[in-house]
């Protein structure tokens, strides 16, 4: 199908909004994506027509809701190239999924063990592992990055040893947009017997991975980054890992049998899905996956790459503008600063012009420390953004520069 951005924009009702008297230019897609009508309708349809609790009722509504929820799980399974549907665990999002794994690893790690994290992680992929290390006595080591915002792979190899038990890296950096060489990381980590967790929160809207082919042990992501609702995400784990990991939260749904003496746990995936889940969210996650696949990931990537090149060229024409994260391998994210101007000031002025960008440390303070800056302005583009919007951003940044210098 040919890529028609104007037609696609019609699918997103929010894009018709005015902000501060200007047509909204939404360039904060790395924080959360906007939702197409199909996803919004899916949630409304659930609450209007078949809202019921799942997996336990015998009545018709409960059955319909359960079926829809399980269909969504299958859609996720197919989309991410997962072998078994029970390897898909619904979570409240990426952070929840990471905590689930980190908590489970408490029983596997001991003093002397090492876990490796990349220097460009989101705080949510740092803090749970620090907590894990505090609990177990394991050591957290950092895979360094270089000036272009790429991981130093030689150093990664040097860090690997038989003590390495776990490696966790994001597929794409939220602050820089760098696409990390996860294939190579997985192969090399496996050679020393370490398990690998890939954080797909920033990649899932741009790259469709085949998790089976990647042979990754864990992969986590959030629906809201890929046109789905907030409050729902997923954990993929290889079946043998998920069977080994202890349950994270106790409650309904996750049990087989409960007496006051002993409880036996349900099988996968229910062992990790205690309590009533975000049913509408889960079903709409499936709708979001359908929506994106209808457009096609090849088409999305090609279009976004075009926007990224155009925006990079145009922004760099502004004197004193520096881009952080200049890897050749990156998604449509541009983190930048104007010489001598605080990112907060730039963000404030461009917001006045109806443009939504993110400013600050993007929950990735180690990256900001590396570059010795307080933060950046981050424009992150999606397939529904246009060249005209890039032009508006460039004009707004020029205006901000004029006012602020």
């Amino acid at each position: 199908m040919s890529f028609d951005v104007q037609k696609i924009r019609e699918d997103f009702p929010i894009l018709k909004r005015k902000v501060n008297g200007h047509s909204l230019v939404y360039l904060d897609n790395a924080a959360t994506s906007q939702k197409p009508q199909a996803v919004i309708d899916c949630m409304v349809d659930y609450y209007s027509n078949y809202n019921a609790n799942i997996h336990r009722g015998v009545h018709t509504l409960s059955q319909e809701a359960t079926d829809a929820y399980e269909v969504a799980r299958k859609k996720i399974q197919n989309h991410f190239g997962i072998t078994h549907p029970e390897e898909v665990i619904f979570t409240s999002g990426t952070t929840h999924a990471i905590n689930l794994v980190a908590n489970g690893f408490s029983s596997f790690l001991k003093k002397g063990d090492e876990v490796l994290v990349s220097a460009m992680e989101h705080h949510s992929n740092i803090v749970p592992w620090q907590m894990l290390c505090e609990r177990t006595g394991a050591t957290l080591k950092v895979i360094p990055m270089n000036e272009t915002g790429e991981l130093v792979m030689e150093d990664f190899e040097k860090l690997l040893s038989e003590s390495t038990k776990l490696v966790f890296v994001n597929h794409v950096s939220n602050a820089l947009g760098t696409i990390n060489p996860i294939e190579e990381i997985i192969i090399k980590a496996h050679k020393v017997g370490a398990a690998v967790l890939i954080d797909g929160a920033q990649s899932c809207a741009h790259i469709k991975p085949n998790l089976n082919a990647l042979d990754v042990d864990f992969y986590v992501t959030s629906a809201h980054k890929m046109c789905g609702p907030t409050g729902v995400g997923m954990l993929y784990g290889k079946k043998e890992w998920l069977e080994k990991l202890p349950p994270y939260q106790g409650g309904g749904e996750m049990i087989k049998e409960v007496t006051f003496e002993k409880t036996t746990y349900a099988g996968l995936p229910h062992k990790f899905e205690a309590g009533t889940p975000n049913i509408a969210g889960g079903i709409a996650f499936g709708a979001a996956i359908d929506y994106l696949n209808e457009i096609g990931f090849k088409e999305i990537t090609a279009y976004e790459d075009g926007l990224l090149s155009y925006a990079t060229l145009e922004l760099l024409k502004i004197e004193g503008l520096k881009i952080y994260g200049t890897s050749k391998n990156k998604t449509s994210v541009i983190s930048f600063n104007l010489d001598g101007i605080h990112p907060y000031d730039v963000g404030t002025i461009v917001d006045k012009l109806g443009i939504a960008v993110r400013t600050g440390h993007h929950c990735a303070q180690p990256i900001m420390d590396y570059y010795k800056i307080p933060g950046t302005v981050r424009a992150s583009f999606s397939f529904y953004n246009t060249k005209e919007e890039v032009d508006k951003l460039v004009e707004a940044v020029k205006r901000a520069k004029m006012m602020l210098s």
Partner: protein
Amino acid sequence: MTITTIQEELIDEFSLFDDWMDKYEHLIELGKSLPLIDASLKTEERLIKGCQSKVWLHAEMTDGKVVFTADSDAIITKGIIAVLVRVFSNQLPETIINADTSFIDEIGLKEHLSPTRANGLVSMIKQMKLYAVAFQAQQKK
């Protein structure tokens, strides 16, 4: 000048600008004209933790009045600080404690003082009032 007079003066001053850009340009100018805080006072203890821009605040008592000096690494934030310093500095502790901040709304800068905006300015006002409370307690001793 009384705190109310200063507030009214600021409201009049800002009402001259219809356009948000002019208003911000004025704010930026105010930020640039904020007297520099002594570099030795820009310490960790005087730092008000906002999420994005740094704000330093120092207070001392002169002739029974609280004198504030402050700085920020972001110029718009600094402009708002300049407004706050103009209002609250050189006032009696009691006046500062009882002062209301609705003039901020009237100037048209309300958005910057929303508690959900991560710029530390709400904490700044709170800190100014806390200093006033502390100085008042000292006086009573």
